[in-house]
């Protein structure tokens, strides 16, 4: 009997844990006991031994950004000679290629670029939708909040215009740590925690599904991580709009925050605690982009049931010097090697096709 026993009992009896209990687990629980508990919760939510993923491509429509986040190695000031705004030709080429590779969606994100008005975003969305049958997962809350502010619209008006033009779902990026003390230090020009949550709340209330992320392993404490999880859980109780939660670690290469990269053990502890706290978020996604294929596979024993995307193209994390690549075959091998079925899904987590390992 330890201080953790009542918390374990709660979890095993499907009862919700509070923030103090979550903190105790994060700091004190045995690593493999955390894995066991997180896996139990995953099994109730996903009884089938199945791991899902999507085939998509990240398209960064601009790297011009006024945000100046200290953790970012990708952005350029909008007037910088290396700043770009994607051409329609390049966009078409990338989408065509995505569809040819069996992709079903694009993740469309970019910098906070004051050179672009709301009409640019409406145009790019309707252009894609009129030319291609593809799901658009686009514009994280900081982008939406920036467009609204830059163009003098409310968040609600901005969301309505984007959705009308073809936006299907919203990615949960830019959440970083949803505590303003931390945001002021690492991303002072990015929207506040409340704004981030408010964009998501309004989107959910318009029937738009979103994901949520957390970037940790920089200057935050364990308490901040738990506060972040609680804010996501509270909003989810209200809206049921989050499809998945994706924690990932800050990559210090080429950035302005001089810390050591979070280790795999810390990542797995946070991942497991996320699964335990977010009892109302259906899917927990492992981040192979930041962790690499090996730790991503191990994540499947620590509460994760989804491996995100094969990502035909990824630029932002690669700019910080971390460049893991993953083919469909590697994805399938990783999942089946963990004893699970590999299922390609769409952005709403509907199964599309099961993939099997080819014989060698």
């Amino acid at each position, binding site marked *: 009997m330890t201080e953790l026993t009542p918390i374990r009992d709660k979890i095993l009896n499907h009862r919700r844990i509070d923030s103090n209990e979550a903190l105790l687990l994060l700091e004190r629980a045995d690593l493999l006991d955390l894995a066991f508990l997180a896996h139990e919760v995953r099994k109730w939510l996903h009884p089938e031994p199945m791991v899902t993923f999507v085939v998509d491509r990240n398209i960064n429509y601009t790297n011009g950004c006024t945000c100046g986040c200290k953790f970012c190695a990708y952005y350029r000031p909008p007037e910088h000679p290396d700043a770009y705004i994607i051409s329609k030709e390049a966009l078409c080429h990338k989408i065509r290629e995505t569809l040819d590779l069996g992709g079903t969606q694009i993740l469309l994100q970019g910098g906070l670029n004051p050179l672009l008005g709301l009409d640019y975003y409406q145009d790019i969305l309707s252009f894609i939708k009129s030319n291609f049958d593809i799901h658009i997962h686009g514009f994280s809350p900081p982008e939406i909040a920036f467009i609204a502010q830059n163009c003098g619209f409310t968040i609600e008006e901005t969301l309505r215009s984007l959705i009308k033009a073809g936006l299907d779902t919203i990615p949960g990026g830019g959440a970083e740590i949803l505590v303003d003390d931390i945001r002021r230090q690492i991303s002072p020009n990015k929207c506040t925690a409340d704004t981030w949550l408010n964009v998501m709340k309004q989107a959910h209330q318009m029937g738009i599904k979103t994901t949520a992320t957390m970037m940790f392993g920089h200057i935050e404490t364990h308490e901040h991580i738990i506060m972040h999880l609680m804010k996501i859980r509270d909003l989810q109780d209200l809206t049921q709009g989050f499809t998945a939660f994706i924690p990932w670690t800050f990559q210090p290469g080429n950035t302005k925050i001089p810390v050591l990269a979070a280790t795999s053990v810390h990542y797995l502890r946070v991942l497991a605690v996320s699964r335990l706290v977010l009892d109302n978020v259906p899917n927990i996604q492992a981040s192979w982009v930041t962790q690499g294929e090996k730790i991503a596979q191990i994540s499947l024993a620590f509460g994760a049931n989804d491996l995100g995307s094969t990502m035909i193209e990824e630029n932002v994390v690669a700019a910080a010097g971390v460049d893991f690549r993953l083919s469909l075959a590697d994805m399938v091998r990783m999942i089946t090697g*963990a004893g699970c079925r590999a299922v390609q899904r769409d952005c709403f987590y509907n199964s599309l096709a099961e993939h099997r390992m080819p014989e060698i």
Partner: protein
Amino acid sequence: MRTSNMKDRFSEIQDKVLSQQRLEFDDGLFLFESNNIARIGQLADIVRKRLNGNSAYYVYNQHINYTNVCISHCQFCAYAKNKDDAGAYTWTVSNIRERILSRIEEPITELHIVGGLNPDLPLQYYTELLEAAQEVRPGATLKAFTAVELDFIAKNAALSVEDVIGRLKKSGLAMLPGGGAEVMSSRIHESLFPRKINGKRWLEIMETAHGSGLMTNATLLYGHIETHAERLSHLIALRDLQDRTSGFCAFIPLAFHSANTGLSHLPATTAFDDLKTIAISRLMLDNFPHIKAYWVMIGEKLAQLALSFGADDLDGTIIEERISHEAGATSPKGLTRDQLKYLITSAGYDPVERDAFYRPVAQGILK
């Protein structure tokens, strides 16, 4: 039905582990077939904690791969060259002296010296190499020459392995690395490394070395064409010898990397397989003091995690590892002492810098 049997099997094995009964072949096979890695890890951790407590070891060492010329032509090797190939090299004793001198300011306590089977090198080359190393770096343990090299040196010199070991010991040899064991199975020997000594001979040489007072390590090269059963037979053969000699210090499962080898069509090992292999090795080899998660082979992220799956050692602060990087290992080529300590402490273990014999050291000096 199957689930309840599985549960019983895990409890059965756990009872054995807790009461320090030896696991059998079938126990190991059951664990290899299971994907419940958290449970397997917890079992291995019982043995790990019993033998090594909360310590996690690392060593400040230098690798010296004195030649890549090799007549063995193993299917799984990306390092070996023929004598006349571009890129073939053999370091002279004075080259080696310079290499050791180039890092003489560092607190290195172990020289790990292995190379190819180069028929042009006489016994005198090996004795002079050791003598030079000992002269330049008198405080370091000379851990040199696998059983495969010793067999080759002996044959070339028309001496017994025992005699060769005797001469090399006089020149400063203090320990043998565990390489060249591959998978001790005649099927795999014939198919992947027919020109190298087989498992039986490898064990004989290790037994001879142990008999002459040398401690050695042992390895398993896994993740190519071997079956789980073949891995387990390998582990049990090592365990049997260890029962007789107590001469093995650490066991090192080596994940196969296929790039640039004769088996390049094979994919890399998965992390599930890596951790299971480490954990099951810890469970089966109850008489081995140490299990090493060699970070160069599986990456530092997984090696850190392996500390909770039975491993108690991350190996070295290596700056110039060559052999696995030729085969496409993507881990960084060197980790510093601070990086290793950070990996260990953030996994919740106590870092212990060690020498080749796992004695604690500080700044290169025995504590």
